């Protein structure tokens, strides 16, 4: 009920011109709010940008999270400390993550630039957030930093249920580390990966706080996502009909993304 009623109300409102004072439902406009969006080039550009951001976020957090889970599943000194530390970024609210990363990426004093210079990847400090070519990547990186910790925790839990004897038997049969990863570990993690990817699709498409803290959607419209347009319609233009239509469009994209993730990843475990 808690999910269904607001969802249905949003779909309902998307068909009306909703009075800003919240009293009554206003004029029925059929699908005019959707037609307004579909004819608007800002909407389509923002859709593409949101999908692109989500793709970077999904791939980045899944790959980094998986690598961290595999590492922390091995025995080494300090493993427990590192597992504990994994919770810290995840415990940070998204907005705080944005603020931390804004300073980390600072073009004058940011540690990120210092690291890149030490690695000889850049020759002088660069302000990535003010560069439209980099801003989306950098905001995605900040979001990945937090989300990959959650991914690592979930996948680590999955890895710990993997029977060691299967892995050992494969070793005895001469399977190398890559073969064991491909034919044992990955299939075993498929259900967890499916859940993780669906979560990442949702978090990636709904992202707002990190970007709000880092760039406010700028420079220009370089990091303006659909979530920003929804916020604007609801609280700035006070246009709840179009805001709701945008929310439905975003939910639809998330649904398609989630379905693709499930279709691609979910299979019965066959080890």
């Amino acid at each position: 009920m808690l999910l269904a009623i607001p969802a249905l109300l949003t779909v309902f409102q998307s068909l009306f011109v909703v009075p800003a004072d919240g009293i009554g439902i206003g004029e029925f406009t059929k699908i005019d709010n959707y037609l307004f969006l579909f004819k608007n080039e800002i909407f389509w550009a923002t859709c593409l940008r949101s999908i692109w951001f989500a793709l970077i976020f999904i791939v980045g957090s899944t790959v980094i999270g998986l690598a961290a889970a595999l590492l922390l599943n091995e025995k080494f000194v300090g493993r427990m400390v590192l597992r504990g530390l994994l919770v810290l970024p995840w415990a940070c609210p998204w907005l705080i993550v944005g603020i931390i990363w804004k300073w980390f990426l600072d073009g004058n004093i940011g540690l990120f630039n210092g690291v890149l210079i030490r690695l000889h990847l850049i020759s002088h400090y660069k302000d990535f957030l003010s560069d439209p070519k980099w801003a989306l990547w950098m905001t995605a990186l900040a979001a990945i930093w937090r989300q990959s910790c959650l991914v690592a925790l979930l996948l680590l839990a999955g890895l710990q249920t993997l029977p060691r004897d299967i892995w050992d038997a494969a070793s005895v049969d001469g399977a190398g580390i890559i073969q064991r990863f491909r034919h044992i570990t990955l299939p075993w993690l498929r259900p967890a990966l499916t859940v993780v990817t669906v979560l990442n699709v949702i978090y990636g498409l709904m992202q707002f706080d990190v970007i709000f803290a880092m760039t406010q959607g700028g420079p220009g419209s370089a990091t303006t996502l659909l979530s920003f347009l929804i916020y604007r319609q609801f609280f700035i233009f006070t246009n709840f009909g179009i805001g709701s239509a945008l929310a439905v469009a975003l939910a639809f994209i998330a649904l398609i993304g989630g379905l693709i993730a499930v279709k691609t990843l979910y299979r019965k475990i066959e080890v």
Partner: protein
Amino acid sequence: MESSENGLGLNSNLDRRTLLKGLGVAGLASAPMFNSGMMSAAEAASQTINFTAWEYQPDTIKSLVATWAKKTGNKVNTSFIPNVGYTAGIQARQRGGKPADVFYNFAYNSQKFVSQKWAADLRGLPGADKMVAEMFPSARSRFVAENGAIVSAPYFAAVHMLQYNKKMVAAAGFSSTPNSLQETYDQCKKIKANGVESPYVAYWVKDFVEEYLHVYLLAGNVTPFDKKGDPVFMDDPKTLDVLNWWQAMYKDGMTPKSVLTDDPGKHTTSIANGDAAFYALHHYFLRDIVESKGSASGDIAQAKIVGTGGKTLQMGEVIQLGGKVTGAKKAAAWDFMKTYGYKDASGQFTTFQKWAASGALCAPYPGFFTDPKVIAAFPKYMDLTLIADTFKSASDVVPARTLPWYQGFQAQCGTIIHDLLLGNSNARATANALAIACKTAKSGSGL
């Protein structure tokens, strides 16, 4: 210096003119009105008022609230909403049926809230006319709508000023701060040649750059909107000069490239440490610069954005009375609001004296600047006379900024101006895009 256009009598509209003419009469009548106000307050004692504010100096807010509650015997439930997301938070409470009786608001939301009936028109409340009458003429139209409605009381007021490094300006061979935008560029260029890589900093982030649009248009002697609130800047050739200047400042490296995302804290550090020569923002930022005790903090002074040229933007945020408050509670809420945004029952600027001491914030009343307690409370390194003069005769509130549709324009400004600065657009296209943004904001069809 010419008077503010609002100071010439606010004669654009009969209702507003009638109201403001009546203010003289209101002043004469103020004694009985105040008595009646005090009676209302007495009758209203032991009311419980719900007050919502954003989290700037919450301890100061709590102390101001406690003082008023103790004096009047009323109770105030204060709730704070973080600055980030305040607009969303306060609107959600209104729509969700939990509206505050008195609340902070951004000035650009004030008329929208009255038109949605989320906030009350203060006309007719005891002392409301006198409050408006005592304001700087240049400030009144932030609080009085075209139809004469008094939409809010001041929470604080400020003017955009130029914080500058005296030594750097002198070392570059200039005897005064810039008197025009072009001189600002020229001085920056010279100071840059002297080794300061990015001489000029300002808070040009996406959500804030709209304020600078007005700061620079006013500095360039452009009237942004007419008295009806229609945009006229795009028809003025001087607008293109201003926009070209702005683009050049960024493109030619007078500002750091990161200025599009840097926050005021970084700019404060930058100028306080001698990494910048100019910092354009509200007057009270000088306090942060000086008190941060950077290596150059002692060299920083304040001047008008363009010394003898155009005006600057006068800004400020407001407090509003809830639209659903009635009866004795309304009287108590208004008494609280008057104390918070005007004077207390004994005629003192108690609240503003406190804000002056804790944040160097101002009030849009000439009386504030001559109040001995304010003078004593204001930081000594700030030139209160200069700030008062800027309020009085060298600033404009741009009345359109409080119109119900305005926030829709403000939301679109960031992308348009950033595109100009990044070189994706030219001055003419930018002026046209801003005019279109006004149109879509008015019709509610912006995205």
